[in-house]
């Protein structure tokens, strides 16, 4: 498989008055062409920051402080704003959480779509409109000619998210980063949108990074999962392996915390404690204070990713030496 984007030892820091927040710490990931990767973790684990750093769009005071992001043989982590503009929305596009907010309320859908095309491709207005219509059909928007002239408030939430997806498809990107694309939608629409994304990734052979905290969504759509905890990868491997046979105590906790309909009325399982403040990390493994399998070693040393027999990579001393 040919790698599409190769992240090597990426570090993202936020310089605050109260200290340096290390939001992403030493993350290495490779996404192949046409591959679908899920990034899961709880709030504040650094999922979104990781996503934004891939298009080099971290808002101040955040900064990429180390590592490389190799895309098309170039290290885009070092690109300037104007160099990056050629890649954003063109080769890599992004879908946001809330479709109510991501469309400009005062411009028609057509204007916003054409704008994206004209920013990246050398086409006439007519050709741009044809591309828009084509992509709107791909996301199953009925009577697209009419819809192009309408404003965002004339669409429902699910439709808007489909339009956002259509906008991200306009330039036929190689990679789409979807940052919790279904969180703001209700459950039936969620399934519809995820099916649509999956279908489009398959037909257009696009890579997908799905950032979410919803393990159910990830297990349906992605081929691989990276579990992020406190800015570090805790576990990385095939979706099936991770869902059926989680290795890291954190991943196990996450899966146990899923509500089970069949078991009747029960209290939800939860992982005790909270994620440590990113300002003062424990010396050892960041998960150690909450971990049920904590050892002496975990308090002082940080585990690194090791590959197990089934191909899963896990950062945990308890799993070292394999199973």
């Amino acid at each position, binding site marked *: 498989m040919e790698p599409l984007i190769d992240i090597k030892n990426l570090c993202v820091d936020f310089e605050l008055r109260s200290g340096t927040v290390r939001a992403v710490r030493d993350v290495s990931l490779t996404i192949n062409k046409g591959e679908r990767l899920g990034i899961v973790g709880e709030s504040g684990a650094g999922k979104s920051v990781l996503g934004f750093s891939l298009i080099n769009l971290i808002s101040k005071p955040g900064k990429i402080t180390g590592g490389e992001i190799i895309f098309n043989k170039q290290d885009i982590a070092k690109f300037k704003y104007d160099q990056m503009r050629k890649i954003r929305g063109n080769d890599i596009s992004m879908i*946001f959480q809330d479709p109510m907010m*991501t469309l400009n309320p005062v411009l028609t859908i057509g204007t916003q779509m054409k704008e*994206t095309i004209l*920013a990246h491709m050398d086409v006439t207005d007519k050709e741009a409109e044809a591309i828009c219509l084509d992509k709107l059909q791909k996301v199953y928007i009925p009577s697209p000619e009419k819809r192009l002239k309408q404003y965002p408030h004339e669409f429902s939430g699910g439709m808007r998210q489909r339009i956002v997806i259509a906008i991200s498809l306009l330039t036929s990107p190689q990679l789409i980063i979807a940052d919790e694309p279904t969180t703001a939608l209700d459950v039936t629409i969620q399934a519809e949108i995820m099916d649509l994304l999956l279908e489009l990734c398959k037909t257009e052979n696009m890579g997908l990074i799905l950032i979410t905290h919803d393990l159910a969504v990830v297990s349906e759509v992605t081929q691989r999962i990276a579990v992020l905890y406190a800015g570090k990868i805790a576990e990385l491997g095939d979706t099936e392996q991770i869902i059926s046979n989680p290795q890291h105590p954190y991943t196990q906790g996450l899966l146990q915390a899923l509500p089970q309909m069949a078991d009747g009325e029960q209290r939800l399982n939860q992982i005790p404690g909270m994620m440590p403040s990113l300002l003062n990390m424990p010396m050892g493994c960041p998960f150690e204070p909450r971990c049920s399998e904590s050892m002496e070693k975990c308090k002082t040393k940080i585990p690194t990713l090791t590959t197990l027999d089934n191909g899963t990579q896990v950062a945990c001393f308890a799993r070292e030496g394999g199973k």
Partner: protein
Amino acid sequence: MRSKWQRFKESYMLYNFLRDPVALISFTILAILFFSAFAAPIIAPHNPYDSTTIDIMDAQIPPAWEHHGDSKFLLGTDAQGRDILSTMLYGMRVSIIIGVGAVCLQAFIGIVVGLLSGYIRRLDNILMRIADVQLSFSTYMVAIFIGAIVQTAFGVAGYDKVAVPLIIVIIGLAEWPQYARTVRASVLAERKKEYVEAARVIGLSRVRIMWRHILPNTLSPVLVISTVQVANAIMSEAALSFLGLGMPVNKPSLGSLITAGFEYIFSGSWWITIFPGILLVTLILVINLLGDWVRDFLNPKLYKG
């Protein structure tokens, strides 16, 4: 597809407007005033700029319904024998041109500065401090200063020619910080919204994001202050003219008409001052009332159901 006109006919704006008698009456009066001002060369009974038609013997004739009134001059004549009604129409035209022109200039400078300082944070401090400095000079001080310099530089004859653009520039320069501050405040609120983030993700340039995405979302407060500012600019011009720093007497605005008549008010020729005064007050009042309606309409918090 419905046409623009149909959309407008069905819009809530028109519905609200037609059910607000104050707005409706204000708009009607304003429309009549604007029309008569710009149609002045056609509808005015005399041409006050044409010195050959003016007879000094007609000076200070009272309005037609008064004793000694002349039906040729409905509202009487001024000290030079010019018909008050015609001069008022021509004068209102000058006042409106100056008011609207000055507001366009203010809006242009203010919007550019406001966008830049709201979106590009590095420029914020310097641009807003410049605005503060500008605001610390009053309009009249700036006007007196520049007006005096230009009058000495061009001489009185030259000044007559540049008076209109000069006053537009003076009032425009003196009041732009109002716009800059309003626009900046809106931009600061808008720039954090996700559609701006999305526009950056798409890879649009900064200029395009500012102009196409942020600016249209900040326009409603701009529209509201514009109405107030037009009224303010007309008043500033009238005040300047009243002080003798605005429009010269041979090309009068409403303000200079009021001054010209002011000298005669105690000798009984009240009409020279009173009629332009009433017209000025009416003009400002309807613009402000209309502005109030626009503000209420654009502010959803003030909807009364």
